[in-house]
């Protein structure tokens, strides 16, 4: 390998001004391998990257961060696919049915049974109502419509808007956005459980009260009848 030639070409490459012919020559030299001056290439790349330091520093407008966040939000599906692909590579092979049973749906309903409080029930009820209306996001997340840009978040907390936007964008991308979608089966199961654990007791106690009242009314009726008869005979 002609070392001088390779060094000259490296200089032009890091400046980004190689023509096609020189590009090919350099590629061939790199492919040749061992003797290629990789260390020198690295040093030159670092040197050239320092050039912008000599410029007078300029600052972008503060809303550019929001623009970037909105763009990140728009590519959430792409990132989600990447994350899932990565997870699939990391996870050992597991049958699909098992995965769907062990994640998400069951987790939600079990939590409900064990830790349900009145507040939680209210939240769930709100979710039911929203699902009926066709909104597919969990009430806790206060998330705008799917195709709406992330602007909505800034309405919630304007002061830390940029930070929120970045975070919000990735909540969709990295944190399994499907979890935010409420499954109808889950809702039905949760509703059944709610009725079972709360309403059935009330119905039972009501029917007991009704029974007691009936007996009491019957006794009062008998007493009244006896009193009427007693008055008749006294006369």
């Amino acid at each position, binding site marked *: 390998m002609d070392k001088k030639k390779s060094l000259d070409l490296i*200089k032009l490459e890091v400046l*980004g001004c190689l023509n096609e012919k020189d590009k090919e020559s350099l590629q061939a030299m790199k492919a040749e391998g061992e003797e290629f001056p990789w260390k020198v290439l690295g*040093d030159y790349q670092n040197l050239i990257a320092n050039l912008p330091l*000599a410029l007078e520093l300029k600052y972008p407008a503060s809303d550019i961060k929001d623009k970037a966040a909105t763009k990140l939000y728009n590519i959430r599906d792409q*990132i989600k696919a*990447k994350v899932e692909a990565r997870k699939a590579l990391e996870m050992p092979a597991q049958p699909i049915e098992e995965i769907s049973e062990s994640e998400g749906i069951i987790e939600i309903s079990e939590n409900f049974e064990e830790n349900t409080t009145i507040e939680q029930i209210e939240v769930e009820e709100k979710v039911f109502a929203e699902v009926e209306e066709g909104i597919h996001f969990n009430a806790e997340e206060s998330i705008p419509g799917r195709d709406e840009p992330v602007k909505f978040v800034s309405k919630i907390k304007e002061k830390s808007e940029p*930070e929120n936007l970045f975070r919000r964008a990735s909540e969709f991308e990295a944190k399994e956005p499907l979890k935010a979608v409420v499954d109808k089966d889950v809702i039905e199961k949760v509703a059944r459980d709610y009725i079972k654990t709360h309403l059935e007791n009330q119905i039972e106690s009501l029917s007991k009260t009704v029974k007691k009242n009936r007996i009491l009314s019957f006794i009062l009726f008998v007493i009244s009848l006896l009193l009427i008869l007693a008055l008749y005979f006294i006369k």
Partner: protein
Amino acid sequence: MAESNSLTDAEIMLKVAGYDSKALEQLYDRYAPILYTLIKKIVTDKDTAEEILSEVFVVVWRQIDQFDFKSNNVYTWLITLTRNKAIDVLNRNGGKILPEYNDDYERENIIPKLSPEIEAMELADVLNKREKLEKALGSLTDAQKYVLELSYYGGMDQGEIAAKLNIPTVTVKSKLQVAFGNLMQKVSEAK
């Protein structure tokens, strides 16, 4: 933000690789001024520059798996990526016929191909070298500075510079190489 200041660029990049948006925000806060300065020098128009800056962070987010965590050179990777992106926009807006911009094109032409033997550099280290670099650049002749500018910030290849300056391509090549060599030498001397 104290946490963000205590993390190195490489640590932040590692978090970005796990799609931690807070880390990307930290990276933005740290690098936006220098990247924007570079973009603004290349495209000059404010709106276009801001658009490119936001695009750069989208590319980082999408192509983070292309970053080499062995060499861990965050500074040079980001600067080179930004420069490539800005030059690409400059060329396209200038009517240059280029292949369709897609994932493959981006990986081939925008994502930097740094040497596997490159030394790691972080913004904090680089900022300390600013004075030395200005001194080294000051020692170049005006002609040398000009050809460096035309290639690095103007995105021109040898032929285009030759046409602009009305000199042979061979002369451009040698001027660039001499300018580069002098710069390298002056920076090394200043160490």
